C-alpha cells in the first residue's frame, strides 16, 4: 500500500510535471498522423501521469480524484467509440471499420479516413488510459481490500 510521503520536493515537482505530461500525452495522440505516436502511446502516458500522482500523493489523494466507477465509464466509452465508429460505417452501407463511408462533411475520402483514424485513436486513448490506471490501482490497493469502488 502506498502512503503519502511528507516530501515537499517530490510533491512540488510532481505537481509541476503532471500537467505537462498530460499535455504531451494529448499532443502525442493528436499528432499521431504526422509523427510517431497515437492513441496507445498517448493513453499510456496519460495513465502514467495518474500513476505518478498516486506515487507522490498516496492512494487516499488519488481516490478523491478518480474512482473505479469513472474509470469503468472511460474504458467502456473508449471502446464504444472505437467499435461504434466501425458500426456507423456498417450502418452507412460499407464494411465494418470502412471509414470512407463515415458521414463527415469533408471533400475527399482520404480526408474522411484520416478523421476516422483520429476518432478511433481517441477511443484507444480513453480505453488504454483508464485500464492502465485500473491495473495499477487494483494491484496497489489490494491490501486495503479495495475500498475505493
Amino acid at each position: 500500500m502506498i502512503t503519502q510521503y511528507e516530501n515537499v520536493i517530490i510533491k512540488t515537482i510532481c505537481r509541476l510535471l503532471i500537467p505537462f505530461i498530460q499535455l504531451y500525452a494529448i499532443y502525442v495522440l493528436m499528432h499521431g498522423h504526422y509523427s510517431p505516436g497515437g492513441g496507445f502511446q498517448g493513453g499510456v502516458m496519460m495513465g502514467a501521469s495518474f500513476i505518478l500522482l498516486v506515487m507522490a500523493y498516496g492512494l487516499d489523494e488519488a481516490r478523491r480524484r478518480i474512482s473505479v466507477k469513472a474509470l469503468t465509464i472511460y474504458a467502456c466509452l473508449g471502446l464504444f467509440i472505437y467499435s461504434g465508429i466501425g458500426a456507423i460505417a456498417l450502418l452507412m452501407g460499407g464494411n465494418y471499420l470502412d471509414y470512407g463511408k463515415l458521414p463527415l462533411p469533408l471533400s475527399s475520402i482520404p480526408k474522411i479516413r484520416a478523421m476516422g483514424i483520429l476518432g478511433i485513436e481517441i477511443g484507444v486513448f480513453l480505453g488504454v488510459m483508464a485500464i492502465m490506471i485500473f491495473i495499477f490501482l487494483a494491484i496497489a490497493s489490494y491490501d486495503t481490500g479495495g475500498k475505493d469502488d
Partner: protein
Amino acid sequence: MIDSLMSKYNYWIYIVLMMIGFYAMIGKKNLVKKLIGMNIFQTAIILYYISIGVKKGGTVPVLMEGLPHAAAYVNPLPHVLMLTAIVVSVSTTGVALAVLLLIYRRYKTLEEDEILKSMR
C-alpha cells in the same frame, strides 16, 4: 560461414535472448522469476519482428515530401504488429501479477516448491 554470421547475427542474438527467457519460464522455481522470463521472451520476439522490417538505407516510416519510394522507408508492418504484441505482453503481465497476489495471500510465499509442500 563468416558471411552468414555477419549477415544474420542479429537473429541469433534475439534467439539467445528468447532462450534465456524460455529457460527462466520452465526452469526457475520462483514464480516472479518465471514472469520475468516471460517478459524477456516476449520482448525478444518483439525485437525479432522489428528486425524483419529493417532495410539498409531505409528511414523511419513517416512519409517525407519528394521521397515516395518504398525502398526509402523501413517496413511499417512489423512495427504495427509489435505494437499489438506489446499490448498483449503488458496485459498478460498485469493478469499474471494479479494472480500472483492471490497466490501470495493464500500461501505467503512465491516459491513453487514451498507452495507444493504446503499443499499436501
